[in-house]
């Protein structure tokens, strides 16, 4: 289903079409995946946040374009000395899109609903430490925690923690009512979602009057839609092989941003032979990261040596611990009593980083004597058998949640690490609010999982955006999965 760029270039020849220069107040953007429903507080699909985060829904705090956590619906907050009481001061005059007022009751409702027994919030863990939520007055909410949680304000910035209203919650799946700078207007399922500017927005109004999200899953169709200028921008452009062509075309700007997606070759730490750290280290040294980035991702992606985003200030470069060294790998296998190598499974979910990367990894492993039998799986199947059933030797997946090193503390998580010393670091991190101390602990954690070779850390997933020249205010990086259009405009 692909056309080579050369072929396209031949057919296109020297296309130089100038689009009519009219003052534009609307935008049509494309993303690959359509949200299954429009309620970010129930359902994990990143596509829900992609369309609605910040545009339609807002939380107490929010992620800024650079990944920092800034005030959202809460103007400011006070934290008690023991780190257990957060008093949020809400902005005055905020209304939902159905004209109901956003106040402390809505905040209490949203948080209680997310942490309740019958909650279907995909990130219920974000709310785990909340002991109670109390309304002090209409613009003040006091959240009491059962234990200090250093990442609490960060947690409240997630798309899963946005503030919803009890009046509209039932309909949010198909008619989302939030407080954001855009209002939901229309959803043609399978094709597009239309947003219009919210004239009553509490903050800086959006420069764009209308914004349409279109959903184009196929890479070839994505290429055609951008080239034909059917869409003004494509966020997360799915065909990296076509990027150079856009870079050379004066009609377009290409932004290669970072995501929070640590792409890893995960190993089943509880089953033989991966329960032996020597074998895990051998696998790590057998992998040539740059070859995978070049071969599978067409050069896009930053090598990582641990499960942490390289653009984060606390990142430690540990790639040297697992440098490409097949001889060392063979020696380690011999030490582990597997001089003749072994056979294992490599389960691959659908994204191209896994499917293309998997082929390269299998051949790199073969070079040191490890036979990895590739099995392609659909997402639902991967979740059921590999992730939940833990029926795998190796698998490739990108962990796209921000700051998710905590998953290594859970011994039941699919790669099954959970070393007690690591759990202790995480517990201490949770109880720490001081930035310098947190950085220190995060670095200890990164180093521990790298030295234990829990997984092979491959690269940080890149986020390519192709947009028409003239569009300004686009997010470069993806601190959370979001296409925030509230600051986007057609500059001249």
């Amino acid at each position, binding site marked *: *289903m692909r*056309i080579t760029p050369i072929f*396209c270039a031949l*057919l*296109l*020849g020297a*296309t130089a*079409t100038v689009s009519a220069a009219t003052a534009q107040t609307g935008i049509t953007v494309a993303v690959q995946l*359509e949200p*299954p*429903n429009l*309620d970010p507080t*129930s*359902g*994990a*699909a990143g596509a829900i946040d992609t369309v609605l985060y910040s545009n339609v829904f807002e939380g107490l705090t929010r992620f800024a374009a650079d990944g920092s956590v800034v005030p959202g619906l809460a103007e400011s907050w006070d934290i008690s000395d023991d780190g257990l009481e957060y008093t949020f001061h809400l902005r005055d005059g905020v209304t939902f899109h159905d004209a109901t007022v956003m106040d402390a009751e809505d905040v209490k409702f949203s948080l209680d609903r997310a942490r309740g*027994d*019958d*909650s*279907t*919030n*995909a*990130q*219920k*863990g974000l709310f785990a430490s909340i002991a109670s939520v109390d309304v002090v007055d209409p613009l003040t909410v006091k959240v009491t925690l059962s234990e200090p949680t250093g990442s609490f304000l960060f947690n409240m910035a997630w798309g899963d923690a946005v503030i919803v209203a009890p009046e509209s919650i039932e309909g949010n*799946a*198909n008619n989302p009512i939030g407080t954001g700078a855009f209002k939901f207007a229309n959803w*043609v*399922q*399978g*094709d*597009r979602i239309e947003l219009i500017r919210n004239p009553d927005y509490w903050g800086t109004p959006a420069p764009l009057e209308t914004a349409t999200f*279109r*959903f*184009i*899953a*196929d*890479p*070839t*169709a994505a290429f*055609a*839609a951008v*080239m*034909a200028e*059917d869409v003004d921008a494509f966020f997360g452009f799915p065909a990296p092989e076509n990027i150079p062509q856009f870079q050379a075309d004066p009609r377009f700007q290409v932004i290669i941003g970072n995501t929070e997606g640590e792409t890893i070759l995960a190993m089943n730490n509880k089953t033989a032979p991966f329960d032996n750290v020597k074998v895990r280290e051998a696998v790590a040294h057998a992998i040539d990261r740059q070859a995978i980035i070049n071969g599978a991702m067409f050069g896009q992606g930053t090598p990582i040596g641990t499960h942490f985003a390289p653009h984060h200030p606390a990142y430690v470069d540990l790639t040297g611990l697992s440098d490409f060294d097949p001889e060392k790998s063979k020696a380690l296998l011999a030490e582990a009593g597997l001089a003749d190598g072994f056979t294992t499974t490599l389960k691959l979910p*659908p994204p191209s980083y896994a*499917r293309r990367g998997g082929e390269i990894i299998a051949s790199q492993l073969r070079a040191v004597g490890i036979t990895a039998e590739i099995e*392609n799986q*659909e*997402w*639902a*199947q991967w*979740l*059921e*058998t590999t992730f*939940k059933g833990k029926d795998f030797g190796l698998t490739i997946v990108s*962990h796209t*949640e921000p700051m*998710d090193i905590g*998953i290594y503390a859970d011994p039941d998580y699919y790669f099954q690490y959970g070393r007690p010393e690591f759990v202790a670091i995480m517990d201490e991190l949770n109880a720490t609010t001081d930035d310098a101390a947190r950085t220190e602990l995060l670095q200890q954690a990164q180093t521990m999982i790298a030295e234990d070779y829990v997984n092979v850390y491959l690269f940080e997933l890149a986020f390519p955006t192709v947009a028409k020249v003239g569009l300004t205010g686009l997010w470069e990086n993806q601190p959370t999965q979001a296409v925030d259009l509230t600051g986007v405009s057609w500059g001249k």
Partner: protein
Amino acid sequence: MPSLRGMGYFIDSFTVTACVIPRHRLRGDEPPCSIRKPTGQAAMIRYVLSRLTSLAISLIVASLVIFLVVEVAPGDPASYMLGVNARPDTVAALRIELGLDASKPQRYLSWVSGMVTGDFGTSYTYRSPVADMIGDRLWISLPLALYALALSTLIAFPAGIYAASRRGGAGDTAVMGATQLGIAIPNFWFAMLMVLVFAIKLRWFSAGGFPGWERGFWGGIKALTLPAVALALPQAAILARIMRSSLLDMLGEDFIRTARAKGLSRRQALWRHALRNALIPVLTIIGLQFSFLLAGAIIIEQVFFLPGLGRLVFQSISQRDLIVVESVVMLLVFAVITVNFIVDLAYAAVDPRLRTGR
């Protein structure tokens, strides 16, 4: 999208196994009325009744097979929706909310009884009524299938008749060569070629998508034109070949020789006597093609990002939206079986021997 083509075959095999095709219909050489029939009206009624019975049995068997196949596939819709960070209690809560905690026979019965009353249930992932979703998508898939079928018939009939009337000549060779090419070229490749030429280079059409019928009839037709052409060409090629060979078979029959002996020219005999008789195998193929166009446009819908039925099934399968998959596939089976039933009735219209039982 490596799994895409497999999907096409999956749906296709469904439609093919689901329709019960009497063997004689696939062979053009045998008159369809060779089955012995009693007299007149009674024969016609018995014929219709027997077709109706096989229609009902096919539907019941199909519903069972669809339910079992979809339920057996690994993957839980609730886990899929909640993703990798979900806690077990959250997944359990969602399973209860979606009604997935009921036993399989219970769910089968409520699904079937719901469908009989027109209630297709609520989609797990989209959280909206399945009937509405299918209705929306049908407004694209059905016009697209009809458009493609009309194009294919418009191309195939003249081409087939022309080739048959010029048998062995340069015209015949040219038409046959073109159809060979039409069958050989995969429709999605041809579709991408058309996008490059007409959407990117010439800018006559947009590269895909559908504006919606409410924004004007011609806009909708325009958006469906490239997909319809891509779908129609291979079908037209097949149909033209069937038309030609069926006509040539008829031209060799005794009754044509009689007509020629009475003084008709070859062309007159073709138009007046052979054409009508040659239509039976052609109708069979048109019926099968319509079913294929309705259900098998998944790849084309993906290339042109059209929100049609095929894309709905494709999305629903990957999201394990079981109830949508079951209902859409069931609907397609129903459509195929109904089309076959109509084709059976059309035989009777074309072939007077079936009506009179002579």
